[in-house]
């Protein structure tokens, strides 16, 4: 009798392990679909990835409350994997600290890529940075200009790979 009890216990152990694996696989796949796949919230993502700046043509301006920010990226056309100069001018706020830019893609997380801006005149700042190339082929990037204690303004634009 003893061996059969042991075998039964072993079978139960493996059956439980199998069920746990199926459950964890289900949760991971669901998580991927919901957060990073076709089940991801479409309209919100679409709104966040709508291009609002033609960076290849020149200066773009965006407002948020009293804050108006203009952004110019050179050299143009704006290409990935090359040194770029980001010129920012701010109206409606006198930031106590220097603003900075967060670069990223609306479609996927790329890690922290920040451009630190230095003042070049009253309300104007400049810094250098690089937009990296994403092998997925997606070309829409954002530059989120963060003005300390005043707010932030997001520019969404296409780059050339």
């Amino acid at each position, binding site marked *: 009798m003893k061996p059969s009890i042991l075998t039964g216990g072993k079978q139960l152990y493996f059956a439980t392990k*199998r069920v746990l*694996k199926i459950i*964890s*696989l289900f949760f*991971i796949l669901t998580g*991927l679909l919901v*957060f*990073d796949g076709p089940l991801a919230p479409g309209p919100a993502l679409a709104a966040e990835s709508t291009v609002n700046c033609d960076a290849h043509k020149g200066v773009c301006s965006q407002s948020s409350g009293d804050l108006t920010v203009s952004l110019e990226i050179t050299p143009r056309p704006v290409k990935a*994997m*090359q*040194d770029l100069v980001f010129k920012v001018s701010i109206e409606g706020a006198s930031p106590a600290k220097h603003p900075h830019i967060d670069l990223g*893609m609306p479609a*996927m*997380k*790329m*890690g*922290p*890529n920040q451009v630190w801006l230095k003042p070049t005149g009253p309300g104007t700042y400049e810094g250098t940075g*690089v937009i*990296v*190339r*994403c*092998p*997925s082929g997606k070309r829409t990037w954002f530059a989120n200009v963060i003005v300390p204690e005043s707010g932030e303004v997001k520019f969404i634009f296409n780059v050339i790979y």
Partner: protein
Amino acid sequence: MSFIDPLYPVFLATGFAVGFGHCIGMCGPIVVSLSLNLKDKNILLPHLLYNSGRVVTYGVLGGVMGATGSFTLVAAHIAEIQKGAMIFAGVLIIIMGLAMSGWISFGQVFGNSYNPGGFISKGFRRLSQIKSPAAYFPIGLLLGLLPCGPVYTALLAAAGAGMEAAGTLEAIIKGMGVMICFGLGTVPALFLVAKLADMGWLKKREIIYRIGAVLMVAVGIYFIIKGIRY
């Protein structure tokens, strides 16, 4: 002179976060292929070696970035190598898929001109029979060169850390440190994928195994096309 940089924990966390999003999508198919290719063998050591190889490559690239302090300069020089790594990854996945399915023998692949002693045939046969854990380290070294957005971002930070360093040695070590932390952060996600693909109960089912082989070939073709167009 300090070799410790506040960027280390930042990029360890970044690696961990992008690992579960970006890396699973990009490197997941490769990791699944490597797991399936091991069949019933223990995946721990091969995947440990694969990830070690990847982290070593990241570390070396980080060191170079730190030393030069210029991301764009180094990136321009390694672009063609990265393209080759992507195509190689595709070929590797296809060969593993074909060998795993058992549908096509190498005689059929190479037709009448198949020569078991030939250089290409030998190479392809070796690739298809990668089961020795030691082989996973050089694969990791090479696939660490795969072009990837978050890797580029980490390399950018490595170059920045190098620029701010007081001397060349400090720049190299800081650049390496950023990339090694980033690479280590990505390991848990890829290990999880490897472990999920290693489900013995799944692999014993022939039909799932064959579906896996077809998917591997499809993913391999996708990688090759991406590599050519990159």
